[in-house]
């Protein structure tokens, strides 16, 4: 029976395992029979990483982040192994664990995800300095920031999606937060200015000490090797704090592969079939790096949804239907404190906006809702939408993008895409009026 070993029990690895099981047999006599083993050093069972924040905030308990009950794995003949893979011998198809034991595979799927970036700041490994990615980070945070008496202030370095989540988490326990953002406005490496500025104001309204265009110089230790303060670059200002959150992006978690002959760059190099340079070894999810970017996507996509898609794709390949990773229209979502964000298609920020891309921006006067619609100024074709504070339908935009609808059509049919709960106030008329006013001015 073919033995499929998956390193990593995150969304990519688990999706791959589930779909391989769906497509294969467990009868040893069958040609399609597969034994599946998932290896993880982090947790016994699959959990939703994106939900870790809700555990700290007290919305959930850790076991609630596990989408499948514990009996699920045995029932579906998926073996779970707890252990940390130290090295891979690709010739003998053997994994060596730090615990000293080994395991053999016929096919190997590497789905080890990411780890938080550390850019060589002095003091970045002190006690009380942490990222927010693994379950262990959460435990660490619970230890160093259980309340605002133990943690009188926290400093967050890096203004992205995880940074703002960490700010919200600490805020929920009334811990004062200083939020250092390198960019001139929150997440404006991705968001257009109008949106980014609205989120700046929203962050401040939650009493977060938001410092834009501010970089960390170093982290200072107390006499016990624990963080005492941070120094700001340029001004030299010292901010006393008990916790430093490093949330300046993530990087593939592939150190254990570096000594093998699997080709890596930032991530594990894969082709469109998610195959590495070694036969029978594949990489999916955050740790995989495409040789060439697909469309406007980045070569490394550290996103929940793409991990899931890669898991579904690789399962087809493993089960005899070799298939390229072929993601459709881009989509993503996030939540910034109380403001939900969804995006479909491509809406670029000021810096990365191609020449042909133009934007229509509408913002509600309460400053918690806005949309930006990107379109091709030559053809008027709809390119994408960012929506804040108004829920919209994935399927509708996916269809419109495929059908290459003109921007006017999208604006006039926006009501069809609305996904807000019943009885919510609707803004389509307001948006259409604002669009028509801008057309007249143009």
């Amino acid at each position, binding site marked *: 029976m073919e033995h499929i070993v998956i390193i990593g029990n995150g969304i990519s690895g688990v999706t791959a395992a589930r779909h391989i099981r769906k497509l294969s047999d467990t009868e040893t006599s069958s040609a399609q029979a597969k034994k599946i083993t998932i290896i993880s050093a982090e947790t016994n069972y699959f959990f*939703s990483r994106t939900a870790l924040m809700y555990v700290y905030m*007290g919305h959930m308990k850790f076991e609630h982040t596990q989408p499948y009950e514990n009996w699920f794995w045995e029932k579906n003949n998926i073996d779970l192994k707890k252990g940390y893979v130290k090295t891979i011998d690709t010739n003998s198809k053997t994994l060596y664990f730090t615990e000293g034991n080994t395991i053999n595979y016929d096919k190997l799927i590497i789905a080890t995800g990411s780890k938080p970036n550390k850019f060589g700041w002095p003091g970045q490994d002190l006690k009380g300095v942490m990222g927010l990615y693994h379950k262990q980070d959460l435990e660490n945070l619970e230890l160093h920031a259980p309340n605002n008496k133990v943690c009188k202030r926290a400093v967050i370095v890096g203004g992205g999606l995880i940074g703002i989540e960490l700010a919200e988490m600490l805020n929920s326990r009334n811990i004062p937060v200083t939020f250092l953002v390198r960019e001139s406005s929150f997440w404006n490496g991705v968001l257009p200015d109008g949106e980014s500025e609205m989120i700046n104001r929203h962050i401040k309204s939650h009493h977060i000490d938001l410092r834009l265009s501010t970089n960390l110089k170093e982290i200072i230790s107390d006499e016990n090797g624990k963080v005492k303060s941070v120094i700001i670059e340029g001004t030299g200002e010292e901010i006393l704090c008990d916790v430093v959150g490093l949330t300046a992006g993530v990087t593939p978690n592939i150190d254990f592969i570096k000594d093998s002959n699997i080709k890596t760059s930032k991530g594990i190099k894969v082709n469109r079939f998610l195959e590495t340079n070694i036969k029978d070894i594949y990489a999916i999810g955050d740790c995989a790096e495409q040789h060439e970017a697909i469309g406007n996507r980045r070569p490394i996509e550290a996103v929940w949804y793409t991990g899931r898609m890669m898991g579904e794709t690789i399962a087809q390949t493993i089960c005899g239907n070799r298939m390229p990773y072929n993601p459709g229209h881009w*989509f993503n979502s996030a939540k910034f404190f109380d403001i939900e964000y969804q995006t479909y298609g491509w809406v670029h920020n000021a810096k990365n906006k191609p020449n042909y891309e133009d934007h229509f921006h509408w913002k509600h006067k309460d400053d918690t809702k806005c949309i930006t619609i990107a379109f091709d100024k030559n053809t008027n074709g709809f390119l994408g939408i960012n929506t804040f504070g108004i829920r919209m339908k994935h399927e509708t935009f*996916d269809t419109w993008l495929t059908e290459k609808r003109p921007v006017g059509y999208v604006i006039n049919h926006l009501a069809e895409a609305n996904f807000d709960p019943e009885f*919510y106030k609707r803004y389509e008329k307001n948006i259409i009026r604002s669009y028509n006013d801008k057309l007249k001015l143009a």
Partner: protein
Amino acid sequence: MSNKVNESMSLAKPEANDLSIKQKLAVAIGAIGLLIFGLAIFYTNFPNKILFLTLSLSAIALGTILFANDVYLTKSEGIKNDGVWFKSMSSRGVLGWGTGVLLTGFYIILYFYPKYLGLTPNGEPNTGLISLFDPLSKLLSGNPASQWFVYGTLYTVAILVFGYKFMLKYRHNRYEQLRTASVMFFQLGFAFLIPEFMSRLNASPNYNLPYYDLKSMWPLNYYLFDSWSVNGLLSSGFLGLIMLLFGVLSIFVISPILTYKYGKRWYCSWVCGCGGLAETAGDSFRHLSSKKLSAWKLERWLVHTVLVFSVVMTTAVVYTYLGSDPNKFWITRSTFLLGVGILLTLVFSLTMIFKRHELGKDARYGAIGYFIVIAALFIMHYTGTTHDVFLIKSSSLRSAYGLYIGSIFSGVIGTGFYPIFGNRVWCRFGCPMAAVLGFQQRMFSKFRITTNGGQCISCGNCSVYCEMGIDVRAYAQKGENIVRSSCVGCGICSAVCPRGVLKLENDSMKGRINANEILLGNNVDLMDLINKK
């Protein structure tokens, strides 16, 4: 310095969730109101009952309102679940268990030992807590209070003040606000005031109306067809007849139409009093419901068993009633049994013909239930005498139902155990009305919860905060619509979703249950393969 130094010994983590000064003050005010009740229970004879009753009810209301204001109005609009699993009250801590024991104790006294509340035999003046409520009862109905009046008043006050709290908590969400306003209205008007006013009519010899909450339908209102109730209605002229007719129409005509159009939520989370209490006073416990598959299995057996029990019991009661005076009614006992049999056969065969493919294994369980009832009807026909059915008194059947289901299940366990098993224990495991509406919702309704393509991140907020214990995430992460008989349409899963994935909708029946995994992979060829069965 050790990190442990400042940690509290408390099981909960109160450090981050300490009550503010204002909140402590509010708790104190509310406690004064309860203290007055406590003193009344121990036979303190208050000199001015009107004053003290007003004082205690206002203190409870004021305390809750001030507390809610300070908790929610000091923060921005949005989801307010911070610390839910840390607070002793809402995470089965000492406060939670304590509250559970107190509530359970209250229900046991209420149902089985009302004398401790001050109920006296043979129409002597009330004493204790019940007497404290006499002035209000006399104001409304003209009669002295009973333990049920005390309970009804407290129940209504709870729905009103905790409804206010709930509306502040969800002040960004109009669905939740309207729904809550609706349950507050129906509780105050239909369950509390109208029945009291109606009993004023009984002062006239032309009326003999029973207590009748018009919105409470059979089989939830299992005593509607009791002889005292039917006799009362029939002896109250045109009004009584209309009310009896309305009761029958409610379950057989009005509720199927509304459930078809809006799902069972129109009743369970917009109108019903049990649902109303669960959604308001019970809101802080909604996340405690079990999401295990085993709990779902138990739920399905239990709730449908109660339904079968209630159908058989009611049929037996009506059967016996019809026998009491064969010449009085246009319908005979045999025609009645035949009618019930035909109706059930009709429902059963229509379901089997049109929905067989959706039911799978469940069809067998449905058949078992159906044949039990039909067999019961036959036995009734052949063993029934004027007094007995199944060789026992139908009144014994009726009182067994009233005791085990009506009192112990719905009251003692259903509400008393809010802080332990969650706020919808009765609605989920016991309510026969929920079973009927749920059956309609599952088989024949436009209602569903739609999921938004591939946006689900499997975080699990929806499942945790589902009071009915539905594992919403299991559907959402597959992009499947949620069509479940138990869903009461409270809308909280949609509210707490951080990615805008869930929406309660009424749309066409076609394609309501989409077993296909849509848009998750977002690759057309791949999706075809994934959905290939």
